[in-house]
C-alpha cells in the first residue's frame, strides 16, 4: 500500500490509478487502499504547508482522490467511508457574493481530511445559514467571500448567531483573498484563511 500513498503524495496520477485497478483486481482490501489514499493526501497537505506544493497540487490531489474513490467504492461492502467524520463543517459563500471556486476547493480539502462538509452554495442568505447551524450542528462555519461586499453579510451571520444564542456552540472561519485581521475583528469571527489548508490546520486544532 505504500506505493499508493507514495503515488498520491508525488502526484503520479496515471501510476496511482493503474495501481488501484491492479490491487482491486488482485482482491486486495479496498478499505486498506482507501486508507493509503488518505495517507497520501495527508502527505500532500504537509507538503503544501511546507511550501513544496501549491494550490495546483491541492486541486489535482482532490481530483485524483475522487477518481480513486470512484474505483474503490463499489468494492467496499456497506462500509463506504474510512471511518466516522472527525467533525461537521458548514460552508457557504455569503449573501451578495457568487464566487465559488475557493470555497469549493476548501470544502474538498476538508472532506479529504476526514471532515463532514455541508456546502450551502453561493449567495446564501444569513437566515439560511443560521437555520442550518441549528439543524446540522457544525463545529465550524466557513464563510466565504471574494468581494469586499461580503464583509457586512459575514458580520450579520456572527451577529445573528449571537442573537440566537448559538455563537458559543460554533467557531466561525472567514475565507477569501480580501480577508485580513481588520475584517476578522470587524466581523467578530474566530479565524480567517487566505488558503485552503489553513482551514484544515485550524480544524485539526479543534478536534
Amino acid at each position, binding site marked *: 500500500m505504500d506505493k499508493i500513498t507514495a503515488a498520491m503524495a508525488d502526484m503520479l496520477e496515471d501510476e496511482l490509478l493503474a495501481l488501484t485497478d491492479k490491487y482491486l483486481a488482485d482482491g486486495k482490501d479496498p478499505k486498506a487502499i482507501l486508507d493509503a489514499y488518505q495517507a497520501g493526501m495527508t502527505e500532500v497537505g504537509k507538503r503544501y504547508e511546507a511550501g513544496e506544493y501549491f494550490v*495546483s497540487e491541492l486541486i489535482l490531489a482532490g481530483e485524483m482522490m475522487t477518481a480513486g474513490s470512484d474505483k474503490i467504492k463499489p468494492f467496499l461492502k456497506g462500509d463506504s467511508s474510512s471511518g466516522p467524520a472527525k467533525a461537521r463543517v458548514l460552508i457557504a459563500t455569503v449573501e451578495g457574493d*457568487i464566487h465559488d*471556486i475557493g470555497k469549493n476547493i476548501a470544502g474538498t480539502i476538508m472532506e479529504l481530511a476526514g471532515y463532514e462538509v455541508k456546502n450551502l452554495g453561493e449567495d446564501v442568505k444569513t437566515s439560511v445559514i443560521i437555520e442550518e447551524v441549528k439543524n446540522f450542528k457544525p463545529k465550524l462555519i466557513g464563510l466565504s467571500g471574494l468581494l469586499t461586499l461580503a464583509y457586512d453579510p459575514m458580520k450579520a451571520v456572527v451577529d445573528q448567531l449571537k442573537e440566537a444564542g448559538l455563537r458559543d456552540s460554533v467557531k466561525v472561519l472567514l475565507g477569501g483573498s480580501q480577508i485580513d485581521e481588520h475584517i476578522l475583528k470587524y466581523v467578530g469571527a474566530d479565524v480567517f484563511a*487566505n488558503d485552503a489548508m489553513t482551514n484544515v490546520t485550524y480544524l485539526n486544532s479543534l478536534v
Partner: protein
Amino acid sequence: MTDNQALFLARQKRYFDTIALKKTDRVPVVTWVDTFPIRHYGVTMKDALADHSILDDVWWRYHQEFEPDIGDSPYFLFGFFNISKTLDFTLLKWAGHGLHDDSAYQFVESEMMAPDQYDWFLSDPSDFMFRHMFPRVYGSLAPLAKLPTIAASYYFFTPFIWAALADPVFQDVGRALTQAAAESAKTLGEFVSFNTRIAEAGWPFPIGAMTQAPLDVVGDYLRGIKGMLVDLRRRPQMLLKACEKLLPTMLELGVSGCKQSGVPVCFIPLHKCMDNFMSQEQFEKFYWPTLLELMRGLVAEKISPYLLIEGVCDQRLPVMIRDAPAGMCIYHLEGSDIFKAKKLARDKVCLRGNIPVTIMMKGTPDDVRAYCKKLIDEVAPGGGFMMDTGVNIGDAKSENVKAMFEVTREYGVY
C-alpha cells in the same frame, strides 16, 4: 493656454515622469474608482449601471470633488454591461441582472474549453471563438454552434454553406447582432465624449488599452482556474503551446488599442500570478516567459506595460523586477510587500499601491493617513511611486478616500 490645458499637461507629466522614474513635484495620487462615485453620490447601482447619463454625471462630479491626478472613465468597465445585455452574455452578473440592486457586478468563471479541445483552439483560435466560445457565452449567439467551419470555404467548394443560415434562428441572431452593434457604437461614442470632456477639464486618461498574460487568458476564459492549474502537470506541452499561440494576439490587442486611443500605457491585470497558485519553477516556465515577451513587445512600440499584480506575489517579484524593461513599467501591488519590493525596484519599475482595501473600508481617516505616510516615507524616495489602494476604492468610505487624496497632496511633495 487655458488653466485646464496647463493642468492637463502638468498631470500628464507627473504621471509619465513617475513611470520613467524621473523626479516629479510630488507623488501622484491615482486610483481605480470602480463603483465609488455611484455610492458616494447616493444613486443606486441598478440605476447607474442601466443609465449612462447617471454614470457620466457621478463620474464628472467625482473628478470635480476629489481632483485626482489622472482621469477615470466609467465606460472602461461598465460600458460593456448594456452591450452584453443585447447578446445575453452569461458570464457577468450585475445589479438588476442576477444580483441585488445594490451589488455591483461579478464575473462568473467556468471551464469553457475541455481538455480535448486544445487542438481545435491551437489550430484555429478564431474558429474556436466563433463556433465554440461565442455560442456558449452569448445566449443570443447559441445558433453559431450549428455553423460549419469556413476555413476551407473557397467559393465554389462550398456553394451550399449559406444554406445553414436559412434556419429561422439566424434571423434572431441577426437581430441580436444589430442591437449589439447599435449599443456598442452608442457606448463607444459616450466613452469618447466623456474622455474628451474630462481631458478638456484637465484630466489625462491613464491607460490606452488592456491585454492579459497568455496564461491568465487560458485560466480566466478557456480552461478555468482549476483546469489550467491541473494542466500544469497533466498537459504541460498543450498549456505552453496555448500561451505561445495567444502571445501575438494579446500583443496586437494592446498595441492596436494604445495606438488608437493615443495613450501609451497598456493595462495588464494579473490574475493567476500569486505565490500560492503554482511553484516558482512553474511560474518561470508557464507564466512569466510569454508575459515578459508581451511586455517587451509593448515596450518596443513605446508602450508602458501597467501590471496590476493581484494577491500576494512576493516570491515572483524579484524575477519580475529583474527582467522588467527599466523605466517603462508600472507594477501595481495588491497584497505583496511593497516596502520590500521598493528595495529591488528602485531603478527598474514604478511601484503603485497599496493601501489595503480593508483599511479603506473599515479603517478611519487616521489609519489611512498613517499608512499613506508610511508609503510616502518608504516607497516614494527617489521617485517612481504612485499612491493608490491595493485594488480599487469601490467600497471605500468617502472620508477615507478624501484622506488618501489630502495626505498625499500635502505630505507627498518631493
